[in-house]
C-alpha cells in the first residue's frame, strides 16, 4: 500500500514538473530565439511549403537559406514549416501574442490590411527602391501596398485560364472557343454526349468566384468589379447582375460536374486529371501538373491545352485576366533583427526569381527573361499571355476585406446552387460592401 502511495506521489510530482518545465521552456526560447546572442544573429522564418506536399518548393527554400547563411557569416535562419491552413491559423495566433517570426509569408490586399492596421508588418519600400528596383512585374508588388507603403514582396504571379482536354475535344470535333456562343456550344455538345463539361469544386468557393469574375470582366469591362469593391462603383451594376444570371444559365446547361457545391477543388481537379471532365478553370499554379510532373501520365499531360475566357457578345478583351500575386514575404515590425531580415527577404526574392520557374514550375512575380530559359511550351505560352496582358484583376476574395470576402464566398455558393437570385446576390454584396 505504501509503495503505491509513493508511486502516485512521484507521478504527481512528475506532472507538476512537466507543467513548470513546459512554461519555463518557452520563456527561454523567446529570449534566445529572435534576439541576438553574442555575435550570432538568428532570423526566424516561417513558410508554408512542407517537404511532403511541396517538395520542389521546399528544396529551393533550403538552398536559398544555406546560400544566404554562407554569404552572411554570423546570421542564422531558423525555419518553421507548416502547411497552408495550419500556417494561416498559426500566424494569426502568433500575431495576437506578438510573437510573429522575423520573416514570414502573407497574402495581398484584404488579407494584409488587419496586420498593417495593427502595425505588425514593416514597410519594405526601402529595399523595393534600392535593391529590388524595377525587378517586379508591374502591378504585383502594388497589390501589397496600403496607403502608399508596400508591406509584402510577392513571390508568385498567376493568371487563371481554362485548361481543356484536347483528346475529349477531338472526339466530339470541338475546338477551343473564342466567343461565349462557341463556348456554350462546346458545353452543350459535351453535355448531350454525357461528358461532364467543366470540373468545378465549389466547396472551396473561390473556384466558383473565378467563373463569376471572368463573366463580370467580359460583360462589364475590366474595372466593373474592382470599382464595385473599392466603392467607386456599385455592386448593383447591371453588368454584375447579368454576370450572375449567366452563371445560373451555365448551371442550367449542366455545364459543371454533378454536385459541384459539395466537391473540394482537389476532387474537381482529380476528375479533370482522370479525363472525367473536359475543362477546368484554374490558376497557372497548376501548370506543373500539365507539363513537367512525372507522376502524371505523359499521355494526359500532352493532351492538355488552355484557352483564355471567351468574349461575351463581342464584349471584353481576351487579354484581360483574373489572377494576381500569390504569397509574398513580410518582415515583422517588432523584429529585433530587422536589417538582417530585410536583407534576407531581398536575397530570397532574387534567388527565388532565378530558380522557381525552372525548378518548381512557379512563375515568379519578378521579371523573367523567358527566352533564356528552357521551359515547356505551355509555360512559354502562359508567360506570353502575362506579358501581353492588358489587365489582371486581383482575385475578388483577396481584394475584399475578410468580412466582405466571407459574404462574397457564401453568396457564390448560393448563386451556383440557385438559392439566391442574381438580384439578391448583388444586393447582399452591396449591403456588405457599404456596411464596412
Amino acid at each position, binding site marked *: 500500500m505504501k509503495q503505491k502511495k509513493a508511486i502516485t*506521489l512521484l507521478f504527481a510530482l512528475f506532472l507538476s514538473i512537466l507543467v513548470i518545465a513546459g512554461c519555463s521552456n518557452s520563456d527561454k526560447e523567446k529570449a534566445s530565439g529572435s534576439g541576438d546572442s553574442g555575435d550570432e544573429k538568428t532570423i526566424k522564418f516561417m513558410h508554408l511549403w512542407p517537404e511532403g506536399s511541396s517538395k520542389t518548393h521546399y528544396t529551393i527554400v533550403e538552398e536559398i537559406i544555406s546560400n544566404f547563411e554562407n554569404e552572411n557569416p554570423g546570421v542564422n535562419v531558423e525555419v518553421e514549416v507548416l502547411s497552408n491552413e495550419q500556417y494561416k491559423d498559426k500566424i494569426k495566433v502568433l500575431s495576437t501574442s506578438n510573437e510573429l517570426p522575423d520573416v514570414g509569408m502573407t497574402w495581398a490586399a484584404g488579407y494584409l490590411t488587419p496586420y498593417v492596421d*495593427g*502595425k505588425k508588418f514593416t514597410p519594405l519600400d526601402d529595399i523595393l527602391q534600392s535593391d529590388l528596383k524595377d525587378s517586379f512585374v508591374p502591378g504585383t508588388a502594388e497589390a501589397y501596398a496600403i496607403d502608399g507603403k508596400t508591406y509584402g514582396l510577392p513571390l508568385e504571379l498567376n493568371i487563371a485560364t481554362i485548361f481543356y482536354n484536347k483528346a475529349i475535344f477531338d472526339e466530339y470535333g470541338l475546338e477551343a472557343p473564342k466567343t461565349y456562343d462557341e463556348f456554350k456550344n462546346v458545353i452543350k455538345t459535351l453535355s448531350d454526349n454525357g461528358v461532364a463539361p467543366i470540373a468545378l469544386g465549389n*466547396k472551396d468557393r473561390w473556384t466558383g468566384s473565378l467563373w463569376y469574375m471572368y463573366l463580370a470582366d467580359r460583360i462589364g469591362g475590366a474595372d466593373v468589379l474592382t470599382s464595385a469593391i473599392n466603392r467607386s462603383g456599385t455592386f448593383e451594376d447591371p453588368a454584375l447582375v447579368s454576370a450572375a444570371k449567366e452563371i445560373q444559365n451555365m448551371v442550367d446547361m449542366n455545364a459543371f460536374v454533378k*454536385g459541384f457545391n*459539395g466537391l473540394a477543388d482537389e476532387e474537381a481537379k482529380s476528375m479533370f486529371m482522370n479525363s472525367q471532365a473536359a475543362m477546368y478553370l484554374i490558376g497557372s499554379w497548376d501548370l506543373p501538373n500539365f507539363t513537367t510532373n512525372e507522376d502524371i501520365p505523359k499521355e494526359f499531360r500532352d493532351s492538355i491545352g488552355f484557352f483564355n475566357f471567351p468574349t461575351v457578345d463581342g464584349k471584353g478583351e481576351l487579354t484581360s485576366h483574373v489572377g494576381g500575386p500569390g504569397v509574398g514575404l513580410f518582415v515583422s515590425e517588432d523584429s529585433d533583427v530587422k536589417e538582417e531580415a530585410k536583407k534576407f527577404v531581398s536575397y530570397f526574392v532574387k534567388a527565388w526569381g532565378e530558380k522557381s520557374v525552372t525548378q518548381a514550375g512557379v512563375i515568379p512575380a519578378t521579371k523573367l527573361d523567358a527566352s533564356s530559359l528552357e521551359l515547356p511550351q505551355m509555360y512559354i505560352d502562359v508567360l506570353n499571355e502575362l506579358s501581353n496582358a492588358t489587365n489582371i484583376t486581383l482575385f475578388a476574395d483577396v481584394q475584399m476585406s475578410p468580412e466582405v470576402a466571407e459574404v462574397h464566398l*457564401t453568396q457564390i455558393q448560393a448563386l451556383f446552387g440557385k438559392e439566391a437570385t442574381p438580384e439578391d446576390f448583388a444586393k447582399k454584396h452591396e449591403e456588405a460592401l457599404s456596411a464596412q
Partner: protein
Amino acid sequence: MSNKWIIAFYVLPALLLIGIFIFIPLALSGYYGFMDWDGIGAMTFIGLENYTAALQDVKFWDSAWHSFLLAIFSTLSLLIYLAIALILASKIKGSDLLRKIYLIPMLLSSVAIAQLWIKIYNPTSGMLNQILLKIGVENPPAWLAETSIVLYAIFIPILWQYAGFYILIYYAALKNIPDSIIEAARIDGASPVQIALRIKLPLIMGIVKVTIVLAVVGSLKYFDLIYVMTGGGPNSASEVMASYMYKLAFDTNNFGYGSAIGFLLLIITLVVTYIVRKLTATKEEIQY
C-alpha cells in the same frame, strides 16, 4: 503532514492544467466578447454590442438550430446503441468480435473519417451513388451539395463515429449487473425482453442519463466532421454553432464577435445540460 495537504498536493497538477487551459481561456473569451477586435490590432471596448448582435443574427440561430437537430438525433440514436449493447451483452456467438468491430470508428481520427465519407458521398464515383445507380435509382442526389439534405448526410457519419463509444459504455454497465439477479428473474419466469426492459434497463438508468448528457453536450459543441466535409456549406446549410464561431473568428477576423458566439455556445450548453438533468432526474436511485 496532514491528510488534507496531501489531497491538495495530488489535486494540484490537474487543477493547474484545467485552470490554465480551460477556465482562464473561458473567462477570456467572455471578456473578448465585449470587444471590437480583429484578432491582430488593438481592442476597443464596445459593451454588449457583440452579444446583442449575436442574439439578432439569423445565421447564428440557424446554426444553433442545426446543432439542436444534431443533439436530438444523437439522443434518439442512443436507443439503437442501447439495443445493440443489450444484444451483445446477452452472450450471443461472436459478440466479442462484433464489439470490436463497433469500436473501430472510434479509433479513427475525425479527419480520416471525414475523408472516408467524402469518398462514399462523391456524387459520381462514390460508393453510395454507385450502389443506388446499380439498384436502379435514376438520379441519386449529390449528398453534400444539396442544401436540403447535406445536414442529414453529415449526421450519419457523426452518429456512426460515436456508436462504438456508447455501445461500449452500455456494454460495460450491462456486464456489471450481477448474474444472480438475472438468474432470479429467469426462475420467476421472465422472458428475455422482460428481463431487458424491466430488470437490466432500470439498473443501468444512471449510466443512460450520463450518456444522454454526453450526447447532447457533444452535439451542441460539435465541429470536426462538419468543418472538414463541407466547411458549413453549401450556403451555410450545414453550419453549426462551433463552425460558425470558427468562421467568424478565423475567416473574417472578427475575434470579438466570434468570442461572443463562443461564450453564448457555452451558456446554451450549460442551460440545456441543466434542463436535461432536470428532465431525467428520478427520486430514488435503484441499488443492487
